[in-house]
């Protein structure tokens, strides 16, 4: 379902106090974002590999640039969008690859491993294996090669609901049913019902978005 359809479905599932009652789109989106992250977290707990189904690809048509931070010498790519955070090392960056499929592989690592690998490990000597560390704003690389710096990278990200365009398809885990048998839309509606909209009877909520 595309994002605007999801919003519309949620909106039409809400109980209105009267025919002119209106809802903030941002409030709807915020609740959708919360529930989506929550449900993807449930997918992660069941099977981290399955998160790949909910990613959005970046750098497939134009590769994402690999840059060098002059002060530290760290190679990195700025995240093209905000990501959702998950508990494993890949977090919301489920996959990094070279633009065309090569023998060079990217594996998620963390800062602790970076420090340990760099000083005296055999793994440090193995070629064609690049570690990536996910930070809030960028992806840093360990073992970057000149070939990849030139070619750039592509990434599969799990992004928040708010980062999707209205025309983007938002994949949500509809097969995940909570204890009460409720899926994504039901959970969003439940959360909104618990927070009834304030109705301004004097101006019929004229200042509110629909």
């Amino acid at each position, binding site marked *: 379902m595309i994002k605007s359809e999801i919003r519309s479905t949620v909106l039409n599932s809400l109980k209105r106090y009267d025919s002119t009652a209106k809802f903030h789109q941002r409030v709807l989106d915020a609740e959708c974002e919360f529930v989506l992250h929550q449900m993807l977290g449930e997918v992660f707990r069941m099977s*981290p*590999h399955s998160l790949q189904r909910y990613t959005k690809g970046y750098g497939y048509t134009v590769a994402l640039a690999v840059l060098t931070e002059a002060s530290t010498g760290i190679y990195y790519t700025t995240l093209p969008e905000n990501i959702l955070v998950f508990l*494993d*090392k*890949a977090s919301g960056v489920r996959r990094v690859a070279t633009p065309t499929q090569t*023998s060079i*592989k990217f*594996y*998620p*690592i963390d800062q602790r*491993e970076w420090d340990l*690998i760099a000083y005296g*490990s*055999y*793994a440090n*000597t*193995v*070629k*064609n*294996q690049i*570690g990536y560390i996910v930070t809030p704003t960028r992806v840093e690389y360990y073992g970057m090669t000149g070939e990849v710096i030139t070619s750039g990278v592509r990434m599969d990200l799990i992004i928040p609901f708010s980062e999707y365009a209205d025309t983007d398809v938002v994949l949500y885990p509809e097969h995940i049913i909570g204890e009460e048998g409720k899926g994504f839309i039901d959970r969003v509606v439940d959360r909104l019902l618990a927070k009834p909209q304030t109705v301004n009877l004097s101006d019929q909520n004229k200042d509110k978005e629909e």
Partner: protein
Amino acid sequence: MTTPALISINEAVSRYMFKFKLPLEDAFIYTEHACDALRELHLHDLPNLVTSKVAVSALGIIEIPSDLIGFNGLYVFVDGHKWKFTYNDNLITTTTTTGGAETQDEDYGEGVAVKDPKTDTYGGVGGVNDYYYKIDWKARRIFVDGIASDTVILEYVSSGIELTGTTYIPVMALSVIDTYLKWKESYWIPGQERYAEVREKAYNDAVMRTRNFVNAKTYEEWRDLFLSLTTMAPLR
């Protein structure tokens, strides 16, 4: 055309992670363990010796290559064959520094050529060699007798892990790598300690299978061995 006999260590790790549905975030840990397994294979099971031409200095000293883990043999070239040096524990392995330069002081036996007592009567000392060596492991040097300012052949065992190129694993040893990784998981993945003993046995079994394969002789080798022990005689 069939699959190659050598694969890179990355491929070995990828195959293992694929087969056992493991998370990519542990790839570097598995790579480290796979390198350990390969080093053990090189040290104890595989016949993958490094054969290298090394220089003997004017003082009769060979600097041990930095990647040498185990010494196998030292040879000179004789008529298209290699001639083995003999280990001599009594060689003098000290040097004397004179004017800042490393030299040898004959007063202390340094650099003095070994003189084997030779006799052609009963009670002789047995076989002797023109070439002897002794290893100073602390200084990582080999002191040789019988040759200086020349080049000899050094055979040794290395870790097999390349610093500059791709590290390869013979596929015949892949089951050893797999079982080693599975065994070591018992120590670093919480909750798997109880499998350690069973997995160690599986690893040892794989090692034995590989060792059998490596050391097995072909029919032709056995035939040559038997023929070499017989004496040809004319058939009348």
